[in-house]
């Protein structure tokens, strides 16, 4: 791997400040050219432009999508990016699913999608500690869903994960 250049992130941020669409060329190569944190810096330079962020997410590989999902709550987007979180929850990639239930997803997902997301974490062996603000969003319906899942596991003779036991 080539070494990241120190000046790359600052130069790239200036380009995006001048022209938001420049991010489509810069964002994919940001981590290898500019090092860790370069993608987050570029997203900040968009000043909440949700249309560009959506386009960037849709054209992104897993690493780019992960960088966007984990930064969403810092980007002044209001609820405009909840569709990206819902998209991530449809994947089979535990990194994306866990990131979807970070601070942004927890703030903006509706009750049904949030509960399904939490249950999906359990199915994918993602520790529930990864879910932001689970205590605040936890409700009787989610408790019932987890309890039913625990019963299904017991019926199959399979172990019930401890974080499911604690909440069911």
């Amino acid at each position, binding site marked *: *791997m080539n070494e990241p250049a120190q000046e790359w992130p600052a130069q790239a941020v200036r380009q995006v400040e001048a022209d938001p669409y420049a991010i489509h*060329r810069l964002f*994919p190569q940001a981590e290898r050219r500019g090092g860790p944190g370069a993608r987050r810096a570029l997203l900040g330079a968009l000043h909440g432009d949700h249309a560009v962020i959506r386009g960037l997410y849709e054209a992104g590989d*897993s690493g780019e999508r992960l960088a966007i999902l984990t930064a969403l709550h810092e980007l002044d987007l209001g609820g405009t990016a909840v569709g990206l979180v819902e998209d991530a929850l449809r994947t089979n*990639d535990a990194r994306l699913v866990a990131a979807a239930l970070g601070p942004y997803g927890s703030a903006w997902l509706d009750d049904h999608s949030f509960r399904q997301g939490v249950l*999906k974490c359990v199915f*994918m062996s993602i520790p529930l500690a990864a879910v932001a603000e689970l205590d605040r969003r936890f409700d009787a319906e989610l408790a019932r869903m987890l309890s039913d899942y625990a019963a299904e596991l017991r019926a199959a003779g399979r172990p019930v994960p401890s974080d499911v036991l604690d909440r069911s």
Partner: protein
Amino acid sequence: MRIFDPHIHMTSRTTDDYQRMHAAGVRAVVEPAFWLGQPRTNVGSFLDYFDALLGWEPYRAAQYGIHHHCALALNPKEANDQRCAGVLAELPRYLLKDSVVAVGEIGYDSMTAEEERAFEAQLALAQENDLPVLVHTPHRDKAAGTRRSLHVVRDAGIPPERVLIDHLNEMTVGMVADAGCWMGFSIYPDTKMDPDRMVALLKEYGTDRILVNSAADWGRSDPLKTREVADVMLAAGFGEDDVDRVLWRNPVAFYGQSGRLDLETGSEAGPDHAGNTIKRG
């Protein structure tokens, strides 16, 4: 023994194959973009395929302790369908991605004018993006197709050490050796090369610039053929360092020219790491 399969279509393989490959010593693969048996009819079909090679497939490979990179391109056969020509306009944004380590497979299938245009356009894209190139040589009329491919590569001005000419055999290896390009060999159960013939060529040509792959896909093929070649090499008197050179250091050197080959992060966990298995959510 560590093995790098420099050409394998894992999209067409099962998760069990990843397990068996890891057990056999495979720790890294490059998956070049190719056709799927059923011809595609639109650009979107390619984009979902490219996204899978950049997303799901490396994720799946990592669960089994295997590093997955890819080469992207409009393949020669589908370059003949005008409905798919728009893929060339989409490639520049894909060639920026971290896990893209080459442009490929490009080259000839039936040696048409459309194939040649796509071949040349993608050689230019490789140079613009500082990426090496994986060239597929045709199965029909192979010697003529290989010779013509070498001319196209030379005329494009791309340095020969940045070009891997693949699916070679006894008829075509000599001209590629002379051209200074890397030489790729696909080992198949019935067609292409077999392990004994491969070892005979290694005795004749040495281990420099030679790569061995399984090219396993949706047809009759075997993702463990790389390991079989290693075993036959050892039985024939080659040393472990020779095996490591052909099956690890040569592919690392070739694809490493991209500056994007990452064999450090992500896949060390191995198949049984806690919580690190393919789960259905």
